[in-house]
């Protein structure tokens, strides 16, 4: 078959360790993005001009910046100019949290704004306070609308963590490249098999997530 090299030495184990790094960066970033993103989304819906400008600027800044630039800024830039010595993984988590919080903030904003005005009106005439209205009526509805796009955001984050290799983080794609390079001469088809394996690993993580997203979406429109 030409793929037997995958079973040699520590290859499988190394791929799984690399996958572990990928997942660790992704999950920690997502976990940190949630509180920041929700806070940002709620602040977004406040009718405060100054706040809007600042948040909008932040969101657009994060959006126009390639993640790779952000990784370089946080990893190399902060070390040379500020003397902050983050490890590759910590720098990656910072960048993906900055990105995740911005995108999630926008999703939270959209979800909150999608709740019809009449839901606020109904709560108002029943005598609910603003806080009660938000916590009991608006937020639960926003969350269920928020979940499908958020799950998609998580899969985007998982896939984008492969960029972390460019600041020296040995995550799953980097391990794959090392394997391809090592078997370059003995297994000319090695690259194909390795990439297929990487694709499978990503699929195993992202497919259940996108199914979950679909299911949540279906549940919402029911």
């Amino acid at each position: 078959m030409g793929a037997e090299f995958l079973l040699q030495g520590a290859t499988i184990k190394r791929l799984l360790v690399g996958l572990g790094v990928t997942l660790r960066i992704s999950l920690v970033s997502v976990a940190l993005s949630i509180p920041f993103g929700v806070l940002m989304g709620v602040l977004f819906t406040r009718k405060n001009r100054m706040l809007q400008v600042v948040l909008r600027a932040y969101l657009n800044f994060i959006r126009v910046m390639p993640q790779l630039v952000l990784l370089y800024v946080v990893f190399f830039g902060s070390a040379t100019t500020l003397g902050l010595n983050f490890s590759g993984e910590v720098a990656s988590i910072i960048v993906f949290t900055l990105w995740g919080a911005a995108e999630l903030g926008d999703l939270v904003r959209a979800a909150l704004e999608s709740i019809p005005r009449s839901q606020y009106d109904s709560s108002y005439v029943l005598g609910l306070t603003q806080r009660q209205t938000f916590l009991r009526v608006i937020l639960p509805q926003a969350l269920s609308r928020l979940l499908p796009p958020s799950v998609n955001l998580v899969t985007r984050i998982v896939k984008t963590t492969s960029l972390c290799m460019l600041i020296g983080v040995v995550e799953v794609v980097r391990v794959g490249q090392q394997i391809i390079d090592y078997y370059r001469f003995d297994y000319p088809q090695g690259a194909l098999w390795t990439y297929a394996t990487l694709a499978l690993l990503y699929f195993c993580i992202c497919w259940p997530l996108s199914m979950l997203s679909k299911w949540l979406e279906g549940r919402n429109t029911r």
Partner: protein
Amino acid sequence: MSDRTRASIPANSTSAPTAQSSAPLSGRQPVLELRNVTKRFGPLTVLDGIDLSVAQGEVVVLVGPSGCGKSTLLRCTVGLEQIDGGEVLLDGEVVSGRERTQQDRSRMGMVFQSYDLFPNMSVIDNVTLAPTIVRGQSQKDAREKAKALLARVGLADRADARPSTLSGGQQQRVAICRALAMEPEVLLLDEVTAALDPEMVHEVLQVVLELADDGLTMLIVTHEMSFAQAIADRVVMLDAGHIVEEGGPEFFTNPKTERAKAFLRTFEFHRSGRDS
């Protein structure tokens, strides 16, 4: 529907006697009173010095052409819109503007055209939410009362359903229960059947009629003229932000002003070449 349903049912003790005069029931403290209420949207004056009072147990129906300010008047009354002049009184206390407290809000109930149930909660949770978190009733008490209310509108078996699984007419009945659960001193209904399929209009209006028979004080905006005629103790016609005519149910058969006559004619149909 020419006979008034209410006339055939004896009024209970809190119900007002059927009023024939155009004035608010004399000698009684009005529950709800609007004094010189003015509302502007930009350069447009939507309500121009409205004076209106609703007595205990009285059912007042607001009619008028689209855009005459009926819905705005209800929204100003409950405080969903800030008024630009005048005041709103509940039991003689000013509740408009800054004077309106959270508790004041819950003393008036309002049901909207599009029902607007909370889709994230079951039917019964929609009904018990405000009594528990605003009034501090226990879950148990609130549920018992909610069940009684739902039974009254024929929806006892749908208590645990999601609103989205209910028909429009059923949802509107739940919305009425949700408002009633707060035991409001006055209930405001804003075109509650306008979004419903015709076959569901009747089931909702029947519920409202029963509430009137039980003596609930109501201020109703509707385009259902036969329903209005059946339920109204008093009819108030609004046009271009002014009250143009006020009177008893005879408004529908014997309007006094040309404006009211013209308005009522829009509900009649005649084929040319035939005697009407």
